[in-house]
């Protein structure tokens, strides 16, 4: 046997105990289940579809949130719009794959 590490004082919690704990904390914190995680851009969550009409969406938020969005977008190399769309997808909205793409999609002029 190779395990000489200092063992934690308590016995390992059972799967059931851990699940109950996670449930309690998740409910308190309002966390989504894992399965609602949006699929990353590139994994093509939806089949290719015909070009849909675009609408403009401008939102005003507190500076703190704006800063967080900017920081996160920079660190993940995506646009803030993509982050917002990921969050919406996680809430169960149907989000087009185009709106989850990391880079701005080049205008497909003349196509179709």
């Amino acid at each position, binding site marked *: 046997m*190779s395990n000489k590490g200092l063992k*934690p004082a308590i016995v390992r919690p059972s799967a059931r105990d851990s699940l109950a*704990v*996670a449930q309690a904390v998740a409910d308190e914190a309002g966390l989504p289940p*894992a399965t609602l995680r949006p699929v990353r851009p590139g994994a093509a969550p939806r089949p290719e579809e015909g070009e849909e009409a675009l609408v403009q969406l401008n939102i005003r938020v507190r500076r703190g949130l704006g*800063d967080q969005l900017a920081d996160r977008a920079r660190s993940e190399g995506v646009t803030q719009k993509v982050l917002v769309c990921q969050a919406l997808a996680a809430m169960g909205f149907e989000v087009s794959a185009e709106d989850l793409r990391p880079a701005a999609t080049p205008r497909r002029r003349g196509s179709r």
Partner: protein
Amino acid sequence: MAATVLTVASTKGGAGKTTMVMALAGTLAAEGLRVAVVDADPNRAYASWSEAAYEGAAVTVRAEADETRLATAIDELAPLVDLVLVDTAGFGNRAALLAIAAADAVLVPCTPSRADVEQAAKTLQLVEGAARAARRAIPARVVPSRLKQVTAVSRHALAELDAAGLPRTQAGLGDRVAFAEMTFSGRVPGGGEAGQEVAGLVAELRGLGWLPGPPSR
């Protein structure tokens, strides 16, 4: 004797969780420890890397993003190995919480950015919540990640962590090409400055009792 379960979590995406799991798992498996990684991220970043790129000592890998199956996977693996490392999604989902609730200790990687420091604090709060609900201590530390050793930003971030009273390890992983390359080459840095940083982190975590000791020969 059951394995130590060490969960790497941060509600912040891109903080360096998967990189830390890759480096720790590869390094400890190379020592001869029996290591399992449970990939709890639905994006399966670790699992696909281990299938497609990893070159090193054997690591048992399970990918389970559903919290019930994740709990079972950790339970099943713990008696079979020395260490179970759990990589989580940078999203603060229930699977991540389960991984925290099932952990002996939690590592919270944190890069030197304001958003990261804030999110690290949030992650530690989730760990505290889980510990309260579980009525046991779940020790957690922030681990500095992607530190640019000499920059004012890094010093500032460390100072912010300390000022916020967030417990952190002294050892951390620098922002190094060797870590970024690992994701392509599949080779975990064994030497050089990157390797030394991983060794330093391993030593500190052993000092905390959060990792099993090296195998006896």
